[in-house]
Structures are given as structure tokens and as C-alpha cells.
């Protein structure tokens, strides 16, 4: 079900790209009137490839995950590596460049420089993209999950974006000549072909030399990280389990990524609050700000909470086997969600710089999140939780995600507006915010009752959850 859905999304995205490719010529004409569109595009390509570098870093999967099951077979290591690498090459990522730029090369370059020119140009582009593919395999394997790798990626981002913006130097001047030459001469294509073969060879050598399980294991936690948070211990057993959950988050790759995303989404407001399209002269509030506020103060519970019990799929029987274990587990999670929400709220206070009404939005949505939305998310997430492997990355990893996790986004987006809009339209925006806050406060008052509902729901389904986590169903 999820796979079909994903496949559909991928197809859709690819067709958008093709569409963008078909209109690329016209888009450029609009942007760069009077300039030569080919030269303009060529000067822009370096940014395209920088972007590609970034999304490849986040999305591209390493082929070696299957190595363990293959290494013992009576097939040569080199052959296995060739096979895995070639298989990794068959990916939607590798046709993106083709989809975007092939139409342009046919529409604009072929008429001017002939089919050889068009071929040389598109060939150079696609080869550059593919060289990035092999480079990224090496790069990710080399710096897998290390801070150094992330620093390098950040550096690329800053250098790429900053340099041209701040006028240190022009990156585009570095690469433009190559692609300009490509329409006239076969030389860039030939050179890039050699680099392509070379990059494959380097990638291959590195993987063969490191084809031992201990070198390629994705998570070599030699040191123990993540200590208890003293503050949580004040809340008895639930606090203790919140601490255990915190260790779970810090010690698994997937949950770590979710946590980092939360920090990242704190910046989300910069996109909206600075956008003049949402500013209003009368001191009111753009209605989209409610959504932004819900997101900023509640991103962790929204994201992490979606997979509520799946995080504990490896140790659910542990909790079942203790007296009140499940109840304390759920309470511990509540505690953790609320604590992180408080931190996000406090961290978002500086947004008051963009207007005091934004602080009001954040207060109202924060109260609403911890009073109401938290219970809704957990309630929905308890619909057939699925087991998942926490050591896999989070990007495009939909393990544990079922229909419920897709569908629950809808009530989460609509619910704040169901409360906000009637008051905002009938009275004014601030009445809408007050309504959100009051609902939130009521939720907080009835916290015990509401959380008991969710706890009861876990107990009612405990046999099904437990056996699904043991993968018996």
C-alpha cells in the first residue's frame, strides 16, 4: 500500500520535472531577457549540480546494506561489488538531469549547433550527474553518519550559496566554459566520459577494499552517547521511562534525524513571517500563521508522535511485562513531548522581532498543541502500529508508516482551523487565537482524563500490537 503510494509520488515528481524541462527554454527567456539562453543556462548549471550534490547526500542509499547476505556466497567479492554498484545506479535520481535538460537540448541547442552539439551538451550534463552518483557513494560510505561529512555538506552549501550572493567570487565562471565548449566540441564529453569511468573505478576500489562487515556496518557506536536528563527524573517512573526514551532517540539513526529535523523546522517561520505576501497592514494575522505556529511549537510531537509505539517495537514486551509498564511508557512519552514542545516554544520566542502578534500565535498554538493536538496525534498513531528498524536512516524510509500515518496529517492540519476560523471570521483574529488557547487550557486541565483514554486504547489492543511487533501477523 505504502509502496504503491510512493511509486505514484515518484512518478508524479518525475513527470513534473519533465514538464519543467519542456518549458525550460521559455522560463529562461522570461528570466533573462535579451541574454543568450544557452550561455545563461550554462552559467547556472553549477548551482544545479550543487543542489544535486545536496539531495543526493540526503536521499541516495548505499548499496552495501545487502552485502551481509551476499558475502558468504561462492561468488567473487569483485563481482558482488560490481553487481551492487550497478544496481544502485538504476535509480530515479539518475534520470533527473536527463528529464530536465533533454528537451532544452533538442529545442534550443540542436537548431543552433546541430545534433552533435546537442548530444555533446546533454551528454556532458548527464555524465556530470552520474559522476556525482559514484562520488556520493564513496563520500557517504567514507563519512557515513559522521559530523565531518555533515560539515563538508554544510560548507558546500555555504560556499555555493554565499559566494555568488556575497560576491566573493563567481562559481559559475568556473564551470560555464566547460558547458559552453560542449556545444562546439566533443572534448568535454570525452574528458567527462573518462572521469565517469575513473569515478566508478575509484568507488569500486574503495568498496572492494572495505568489503568487510566491520568496515561497512552503518552504525559503529563505539562510545555510548546520550545521558539521562536530570530534570525528567523528578516525574517518578514516567520520568524514568522518558529518560529511557530520550536515550532511544539519541542512540538510533532514524530518531536522531527526526530530532535534527525538529531543530531545523524552528527556522520554518523565517520563510513565512518575512514574506510580505502574508503581512497585513491592519495588525491582523495571516491565517497561515496558525499553521506555522502549530508546526514550530509542535513539530517533534507531530513527527515523532506519528510513529508513537513503533519506536518501541523492539522492546514492547518489556513494558507489557511490568506492572503498569505500558501506562508509564505512554506517560513518559507525553512528558517528553511536552518538554520538547516547551523548548521549541521558548526557542521560537525571538520571532517576536517580526511582530508581537507572532508571539501570541505561538502562545496560542503551543497551548493548543500540548492541550489538544498531542492527544489527537497519539490517538491516531495507535491505529495499527507497525514495527520498524530504528537503525536505518529516516529519509525516504517509510518503515512503520501505514495508511494511518498518511491520513492523520489531515485532521492535524484541519483541527486548529476548525477552532480558529469561526472565531477569527465572526469576531477577529485575536478571538480566534484566544479560542485556540482556551481549548488548549481546557485540554491541559483534563490532561489526566484525555491521556487515560489513549492509555486504555493501548491496553485494549495490547495483544495485537505485541504480536505485530514480534512480526507474527
Amino acid at each position, binding site marked *: 500500500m505504502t509502496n504503491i503510494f510512493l511509486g505514484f509520488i515518484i512518478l508524479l515528481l518525475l513527470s513534473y520535472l519533465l514538464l519543467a524541462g519542456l518549458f525550460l527554454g521559455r522560463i529562461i527567456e522570461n528570466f533573462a531577457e535579451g541574454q543568450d539562453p544557452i550561455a545563461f543556462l550554462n552559467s547556472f548549471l553549477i548551482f544545479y549540480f550543487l543542489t544535486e550534490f545536496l539531495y543526493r547526500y540526503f536521499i541516495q542509499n548505499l548499496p552495501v546494506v545487502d552485502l551481509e547476505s551476499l558475502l558468504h556466497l561462492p561468488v567473487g567479492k569483485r563481482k558482488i561489488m560490481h553487481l551492487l554498484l550497478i544496481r544502485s545506479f538504476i535509480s530515479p535520481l539518475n534520470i533527473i538531469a536527463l528529464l530536465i535538460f533533454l528537451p532544452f537540448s533538442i529545442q534550443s541547442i540542436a537548431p543552433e549547433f546541430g545534433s552533435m552539439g546537442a548530444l555533446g551538451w546533454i551528454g556532458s550534463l548527464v555524465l556530470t550527474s552520474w559522476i556525482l552518483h559514484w562520488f556520493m557513494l564513496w563520500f557517504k560510505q567514507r563519512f557515513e553518519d559522521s559530523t565531518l561529512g555533515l560539515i563538508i555538506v554544510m560548507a558546500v552549501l555555504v560556499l555555493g550559496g554565499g559566494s555568488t550572493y556575497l560576491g566573493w567570487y563567481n562559481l559559475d565562471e568556473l564551470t560555464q566554459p566547460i558547458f559552453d565548449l560542449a556545444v562546439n566540441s566533443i572534448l568535454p564529453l570525452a574528458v567527462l566520459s573518462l572521469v565517469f569511468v575513473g569515478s566508478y573505478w575509484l568507488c569500486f576500489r574503495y568498496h572492494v577494499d572495505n568489503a568487510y562487515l566491520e568496515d561497512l556496518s552503518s552504525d559503529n*557506536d563505539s562510545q*555510548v552517547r546520550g545521558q539521562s536528563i536530570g530534570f525528567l527524573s523528578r516525574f517518578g517512573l514516567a520520568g524514568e521511562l522518558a529518560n*529511557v526514551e530520550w536515550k532511544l532517540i539519541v542512540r538510533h539513526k532514524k530518531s536522531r534525524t527526526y530530532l535534527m529535523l525538529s531543530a531545523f523546522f524552528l527556522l520554518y517561520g523565517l520563510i513565512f513571517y518575512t514574506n510580505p505576501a502574508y503581512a497585513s497592514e491592519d495588525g491582523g494575522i495571516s491565517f497561515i500563521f496558525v499553521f506555522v505556529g502549530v508546526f514550530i511549537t509542535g513539530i517533534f510531537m507531530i513527527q515523532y508522535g506519528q510513529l508513537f509505539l513503533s519506536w518501541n517495537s*523492539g*522492546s514492547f*514486551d518489556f513494558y507489557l511485562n511490568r*506492572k503498569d509498564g505500558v501506562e508509564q511508557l505512554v506517560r513518559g512519552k507525553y512528558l517528553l513531548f511536552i518538554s520538547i514542545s516547551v523548548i521549541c516554544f521558548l526557542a521560537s520566542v525571538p520571532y517576536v522581532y517580526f511582530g508581537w502578534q507572532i508571539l501570541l500565535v505561538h502562545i496560542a498554538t503551543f497551548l493548543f498543541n500540548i492541550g489538544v493536538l498531542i492527544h489527537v496525534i497519539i490517538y491516531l498513531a495507535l491505529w495499527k502500529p507497525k514495527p520498524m528498524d530504528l537503525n536505518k536512516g529516516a529519509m525516504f524510509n517509510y518503515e512503520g508508516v501505514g495508511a494511518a500515518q498518511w491520513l492523520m496529517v489531515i485532521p492535524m492540519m484541519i483541527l486548529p482551523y476548525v477552532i480558529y476560523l469561526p472565531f477569527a471570521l465572526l469576531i477577529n483574529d485575536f478571538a480566534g487565537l484566544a479560542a485556540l488557547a482556551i481549548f488548549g487550557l481546557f485540554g491541559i486541565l483534563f490532561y489526566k482524563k484525555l491521556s487515560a483514554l489513549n492509555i486504555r486504547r493501548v491496553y485494549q489492543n495490547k495483544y495485537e500490537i505485541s504480536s505485530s511487533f514480534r512480526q507474527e501477523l
Partner: protein
Amino acid sequence: MITVTNLKKQYKEAVVLDVESLEIPKGECFGLVGNNGAGKTTLFRIMLDLVRPTSGEVSLEGHVVNQGEEWKKFTGAYLDEHMLLSYLTPDEYFETLRKIHGLSEADLQVHLEKFAELFNDEVRGKKKYIRDLSKGNLKKVGIAAALLGNPEVVFLDEPFENLDPSSQIRLKKLISKEKDEFKRTFLISSHDLNHVTEICDRIVLLEKGKIIRDLSEKSEMMRELEAYFVG
């Protein structure tokens, strides 16, 4: 006293467990044997309220297991890794359990001292997560955790599996000692006939979910079991 009455587990048409009546007196070491798929683990899981029985009930010391959680206070169990928090180090795990059971640090020390020989310096004080331990050491952590908190009843599924020979012998000694000293009831499932017959007072043989032998005579056990398993 543990009683099982008319217990039945059915997946659609297939009956995987059908135990009419079983009584285990306090302080007994109860061994459960049978080939793969005989229903040993299912029986333990139902007795621990991890799997819902189709009909019938289990009661531990008068508490019906699927009607309340009181019994969990005096019951310890280690069936598989799902009963561990594998992303903690063994020390953190024992510390968490200490808080759950409300024990003092000295209590925990005394408890873990008993396992010093079994742990063989490979478990405590190591900066290593439980999930990264070898299978044998993982099992030792689980068993030590099951015995924590002075339980009256202890369930162990295949406790000897993956242990090296010295550890197997140490574990046998440990179980016998715990049973004699504290009158703990042990329920042990195992494929290792030598070990179970040695430490258990009574052995029940399961076949396709049914009890087909109930042996209490030490001298008879081994012969009967060998006769059955050799076929």
C-alpha cells in the same frame, strides 16, 4: 501455585495449544519440552498475558493473568530480546529495572553479585549496548533481569541456548540455588534434555499443543524422553 484450566489457542482453524489442566505447585522447577512448533513459547506467552487465549484461563497465585496486573509484581520472565531495552548498556538497563522495582542500589549490587560468575566480566562495566552483545551475553542479561526484584515465579525460554558449556553449568547451579533458597517457582522450556532433567523436578512434554507426558520420576525422565524423541 499456578493453574491452567481449559486453555486453548486457535488461529482460525489451526489449534496450536490445548491444555485441559495443569497445576504447578509453589517452589517447583517445571520443565517444558517438545519439538519445534509444539507450543512451548505460545504457552509461556499466554501465561504471561502477551498473547490472548482463545478460551480458558491462567492464574498465578490466585490472580487471573488477563484480569489485572498485580501478578506482574512477583513474576519475572525472559523469553526473547523483545523483553530487553537493547539500546541501553547492561548497567543502564539494570539501573532502569532497579527504579521500576523500587530497589535500593545496595539491593541491586547484592543481586548482581550472584551473577558475577555467570557474567564472567563480560557484561558489567562495559561501554557497549545490549544489542551489540554476543547472543550468550544477551541471554545472561535477560536472565539476570528476570530474577531481579525477588520474583516468586520465573519464566525462562531456552535459557541454555547460546551459552558456552561453563556458563550452562553455572546457570544450572544458579537456578537450583535460587529455587532451594528462596522457594522460587521456575518454568523452563528447553531443547537440552540433559540440563532440564537434571534441574527440574517435573517435566511436561508437549506435542502439537497437547500435553502428552507429565513426568515426575527422576529415574524415568531421561529414558521416557529419549524414547519419545528418538522415535
